[in-house]
């Protein structure tokens, strides 16, 4: 009987500690989530630096990848900017510079915006 109680108590302690550890490592009780699998031979349980600081590959590639001269994708500098740093939508113009053979360079609407903008800026400067 005594043996049985010891066995049950040991198993209970073992399972509770493992469940607690898994919960802690999952972020409960203030635990820090690990992003690296340890060695299958057994390795450090708690490591203060066990998260790999990975750069988000998709974001990284979108912001910094410059296309090849053969890929015919022109890098759009406005695309990577955050909303807060973008120009006012009413003042946005197409940043592409067209070829001399492609026809439309600036539409009449864009021209109006540009003229208005330059007048407003000039008026501020004069003050």
């Amino acid at each position: 009987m005594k043996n049985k109680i010891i066995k049950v108590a040991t198993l209970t302690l073992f399972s509770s500690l493992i469940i607690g550890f898994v919960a802690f490592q999952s972020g409960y009780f203030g635990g820090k989530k690990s992003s690296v699998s340890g060695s299958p031979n057994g390795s450090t349980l708690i490591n203060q630096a066990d998260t790999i600081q990975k750069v988000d590959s998709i974001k990284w590639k979108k912001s910094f990848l410059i296309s090849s001269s053969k890929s015919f994708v022109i890098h759009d500098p406005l695309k990577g900017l955050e909303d807060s740093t973008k120009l006012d939508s009413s003042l946005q113009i197409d940043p592409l510079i067209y070829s001399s053979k492609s026809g439309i360079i600036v539409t009449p609407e864009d021209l109006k915006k540009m003229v208005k903008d330059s007048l407003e800026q000039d008026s501020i400067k004069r003050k």
Partner: protein
Amino acid sequence: MTLAEFYSALEAMGISLVFLMLVFVPMEKVFPAKKHQKILRPKWLLDFCFFLGQYLLWSGLVLWTLNYFADYLTSIIPNSFQQKIASQPFLLQVFEVLVLSDFLIYWGHRLQHNVDFLWRFHKVHHSAEHLDWLAAHREHPLDSIYTIGLINLPAFIMGFPLESIAGVIAFRGIWAIYIHSNVRLPIGKLRILIGAPELHHWHHDLDRRAGNYANISPIMDVIFGTYKCPDKEPEKFGIQEETPNSYLGQLIEPLLPKRVWDRIKQGSEKL
């Protein structure tokens, strides 16, 4: 490593030591595989040096290497591939990551036992003649880089955030220590799914190609015909080759050509 980082590693080591003793010592006393094995059995100090080394010296190097490796993979894997993976249902991604890492670690581990160059480093882990939770930490740092690199490789390639299954990773980590412990607690048919010390003890048999190479689930061993589970414990653990008895010796020996190491050994014996 700054002083603050060192103290932090020291703290992590202390907490882990107390926690692991709480988890495994009662189990090893109540359900022992080798009944007469003491807690402070022969060579416990050598294994304790490996334990300290892992926390205080090598985990930083291993993580730095993995970080470097992960960044390199990030730069060469096409975005479109990772986006396709990310668009799959989450549970399918989890399944893929776990199965692929088990597959890789199975074959990577089997190679460690069959390719002499890899065995040089892996034999350090197998040189333990007494198995328990502390002996699980006996691993050459370069062997750690190899095994940890392999087990994480599918997640790096797929761009899968492992922190989203941190619980599974934690379970896998502590179970890897448990299967080395001096415990015999048969779990019946369940051992096909999650593995058990009784299986892994046979992996540490004197025979270098004893089988049971899988990580958590022995399914890979069953599929590839290396599953081995007799009803008794192996008589002896360890390897048939001669290995150094000191921590430094175990770290340096695999790095040197055999004749150079033999010369060093002869020199130290003369002294």
